[in-house]
């Protein structure tokens, strides 16, 4: 079934179609100059591949890929609960919303895991510093004061509510 120009399956041979190509116009190319079609070598994945990296960590692969790319990133391999969710997310394609929503969910869980990881190493993360509180103080004092006031007010209300709840229970 395949014609000489492609290895891919084709149901219709273009040469048998009445009028094939009579209006083809090479100037009608909205991809100019991003795509240089003269250097195209036919459809499919038949290019000469670079040498293949053998990753020493777990790399998740999109199911839209038929094979692992020649080079892969090895930063922060999946682990823990977030890692389990990421692996599950990779059962769905990039075209499926579940894929991305599960990954976003895993990202949030991963933040909590990150805090435990810090604590396990005997480190209490200085979250205000990580968020740039020093720069906020230097360049936006009013904003910082406002944020601190809001946090203080919210925690005061929360503490008061908890206290009352506690008393009710008792």
């Amino acid at each position: 079934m395949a014609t000489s120009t492609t290895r891919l399956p084709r149901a219709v041979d273009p040469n048998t179609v009445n009028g094939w190509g009579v209006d083809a116009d090479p100037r009608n190319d909205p991809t100019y100059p991003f795509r240089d079609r003269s250097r195209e070598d036919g459809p499919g994945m038949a290019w000469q591949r670079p040498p293949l990296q053998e990753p020493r960590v777990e790399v998740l692969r999109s199911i839209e890929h038929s094979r692992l790319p020649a080079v892969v990133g090895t930063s922060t391999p999946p682990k823990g609960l977030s890692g389990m969710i990421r692996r599950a997310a990779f059962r769905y394609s990039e075209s499926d919303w579940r894929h991305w929503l599960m990954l976003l969910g895993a990202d949030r869980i991963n933040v909590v895991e990150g805090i435990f990881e810090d604590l396990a190493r005997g480190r209490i993360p200085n979250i205000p510093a990580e968020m740039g509180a020093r720069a906020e103080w230097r360049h936006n004092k009013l904003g910082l004061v406002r944020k601190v006031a809001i946090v203080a007010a919210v925690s005061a209300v929360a503490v008061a509510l908890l206290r009352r709840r506690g008393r009710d229970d008792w």
Partner: protein
Amino acid sequence: MLAAEYRGPYRMRAGRKRMPRIEHPRDALVRVTRSCICGSDLHLYRGMVPDTRVGMVFGHEFCGIVEEVGPEVEKLKPGDHVLVPFNIACGQCHFCKQGLFGNCHEANAEATAVGGIFGYSHTAGGYDGGQAEYARVPYADVGPTVIPDWMDLDDAVMLTDVVPTGYQAAEMGGIQKGDTVVVFGAGPVGIMAARCAWLFGAGRVIVIDHLHYRLDFARRYCPAEVYDFREIEDMAVFVKKQTDSLGADVCIDAVGGDAAGSALHTLFGKAMKLEAGSAIALHWAINSVKKGGIVSIVGVYGPTGNMIPIGNVLNKGITIRANQASVKRLLPRLIEHVQAGRIDPKALITHRMSLEDVSDGYHIFSAKLDGCIKPVLYPNGGQ
């Protein structure tokens, strides 16, 4: 080594990390001398990009000195000072061969819709980036370019992303002599797009943002007519009025999913994540361009979907062109522009800081404090 790592939304910190190493025969190890923070990093920083893992090193705009090369690297040698395009590209796949270096098929295991990008979540391949003292640079013979002797390193690092992206934004606009071009966003990318629109022969360049210090800069630097969208009641009507009621020939979206200016999109796209970021700038671009006009998108959106007036795209016969910049394709021309003094990239840099100050750097750039346009980190003291 010292590296900046992501700890969760709005949290970055500098800390010790294991040195990267050569993992593939075509890798190089680069000692970083300059590394920018980009508007694209803000999407990661704000937790908008799926599969952004705690502990990852960000940074896709960097230059540095080659420290070590893998056995198959031929063009680079230790000691070369190189600028590293943000795209990781093999140079020999179906897409690279056609010059689509931002769309390489041999660099991103986690997704096919995005090429490999340094320090840009696992959705862009899971590579640690250049906001660190050292970085692993795959396909070292393809992207990295030795910095010419005469070039300032501050200009060189801007050629890894901002300049090519702004240039490609204008190029994709298909600008013809005399065209009216409206650029949404006066960040580094929008400013550069507006600057480059003139190189393609624009007749009028209008820049829209709401940060006055950036609009002031754009007015002088590009130069451009500038407007604050908060003072404009209806963007489409405004642009029509500017163009004898026809609309602009070309609209460029240099904002992306973090756009302000629409309560609805902010709620759906940013707070509830029902769409892949706020698409209001793109909405304005589509509705402000003239019939048969061109919308060029370089602003970045997430992978799910957005509410945009696609019906108007159809009825108006609009052409939409968009991509991640193909840095390597554009570099030779852009180096000429810098040498000839037609583009002055380093003029955009407002903040120079050490890697230790990364938490503050992100916050200043994200919250747009202290007149920030472009912050650059100097790992290894910039040497």
